[in-house]
């Protein structure tokens, strides 16, 4: 019997496919999310929109709060550590979270190195903007990937850009002859073995969700149609007027992402979405997606 194998690590993400992972900041939120049909929750002290508004340094949440959320629900609980902050990751592993998000939503602890995720028993999810970034994270041991989008904005434009960029690079690789794989690996800044494997299988070796800017059922379905395996919603649910209602609608639109009549039905009469932010109005140094490499 072997615990925490590569298969069990990436396998949990496979079980979350077609589902919605919701940011929650209290045990009560977590219960609302579970009741709305979330496949997992991300436990944190503040949703990205509030982190953005507060400024300063954003760190790992209080382990006590994360434990309360773990006690409140039966679905998996994820928590965030700062990019490169392997001790925050050790702490999260020690309290037994189900997945660690090494996240650009928090202030990076290391501008050069991400966490060596192979060294952990707990699986990690990491953000990416393009295929090279995705494969570098997988090379470091990430068992799940998500496109970054721009967290806390309620604006889907960056999530779309990142998903299209990843999918386009995968389509290119699928049609690339083996003699060009090494040059492509160099160009992507990605491990050659992962580039070659992807070229052969035609898909990423781990699950890829969309994150950063999902605010409506149609946003979720858009990301699914672009090729996401599932959806992270950060601020989009609990910064909206009626989180339970919006959460359930986003869950349904994610399952039935190809059924426009059904998406129309669940989108009718929803209470107000979170207020959005135009990306151009955010100062370049405040863009979260640019954190990490």
């Amino acid at each position: 019997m072997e615990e925490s194998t590569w298969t069990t690590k990436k396998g949990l993400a496979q079980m979350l496919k077609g589902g919605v992972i919701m940011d929650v900041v209290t045990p009560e939120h977590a219960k609302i999310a579970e009741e709305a049909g979330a496949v997992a929750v991300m436990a944190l002290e503040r949703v990205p929109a509030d982190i953005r508004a507060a400024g300063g340094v954003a760190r790992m949440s209080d382990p006590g709060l994360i434990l309360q959320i773990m006690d409140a629900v039966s679905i998996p609980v994820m928590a965030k550590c700062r990019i490169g902050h392997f001790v925050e990751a050790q702490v999260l592993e020690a309290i037994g979270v189900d997945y660690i998000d090494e996240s650009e939503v928090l202030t990076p602890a290391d501008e050069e190195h991400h966490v060596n995720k192979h060294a952990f028993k707990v699986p990690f999810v990491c953000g990416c903007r393009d295929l090279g970034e995705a494969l570098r994270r997988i090379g470091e041991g990430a068992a799940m990937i998500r496109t970054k989008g721009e967290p806390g904005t309620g604006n889907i434009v960056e999530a779309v850009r990142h998903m299209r960029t990843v999918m386009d690079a995968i389509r290119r690789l699928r049609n690339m002859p083996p003699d060009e794989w090494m040059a492509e690996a160099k160009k992507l800044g990605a491990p050659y073995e992962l580039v070659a494997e992807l070229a052969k299988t035609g898909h990423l070796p781990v699950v890829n969700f969309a994150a950063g800017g999902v605010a409506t059922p149609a946003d979720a379905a858009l990301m699914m149609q672009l090729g996401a395996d599932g959806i992270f919603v950060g601020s989009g649910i609990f910064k909206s007027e009626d989180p339970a209602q919006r959460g359930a609608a986003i869950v349904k639109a994610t399952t039935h992402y190809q059924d426009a009549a059904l998406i129309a039905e669940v989108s009718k009469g929803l209470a107000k979405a979170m207020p959005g932010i135009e990306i151009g109005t955010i100062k370049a140094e405040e863009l979260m997606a640019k954190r990490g490499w």
Partner: protein
Amino acid sequence: MAESPTIGVLALQGAFVEHATMLRGLGVDVREVRLPAQLRGLAGLVIPGGESTTIGKLLVAYELLAPLRELIAAGLPVFGTCAGMILLAKDIGGLEQPLLATMDLRVRRNAFGRQLQSFEADLRVPVLGERPLRAVFIRAPVVEAVGLGVEVLGWLDDGRIVAARQGRLLVTAFHPELTDDDRLHRYFLEQVVGLGHGEKRALTHAFASGDRPL
């Protein structure tokens, strides 16, 4: 020409693509099921691993729960893995979540603990032959008790039940769809659904409850 049988895979959430790929590899047609109309004319159904609470809520929201129960009562063969097993069990220890509740099992959710306790193990499953089955357990449930007419198919070394069959219902606590070993899917198609070896033809209800596989 006779139509080849179609096996449904409940595609509300979870690892349904992995099941579909494995079934197609065994030569059957596969249909993803998200709405009641897609249940029509299926020779069998797979309920995949995923989050049982989410799948249960979506079964209710899209009015799949009642028609599925009726089909199962009428003899629809079903293969449930992990969350699928939870949804089929009659008793999950009083937890409040929607269930199909059609199989005489008492199942405990997250019986081994959280993700850090997820594991792989070699199982002895006598109906699949001598070669052990590599089984992947992810935040897995376990069968705590079985009712009359339930045949236990697989155990862990400590004796805990992780695979069982009751008539046309087959369940595992683990994920055969995450491995390359297709023997359980083959067993489901041949011995539970009753498809002939190598031919895509449905044999009519060849196996009643408790029958030994050929």
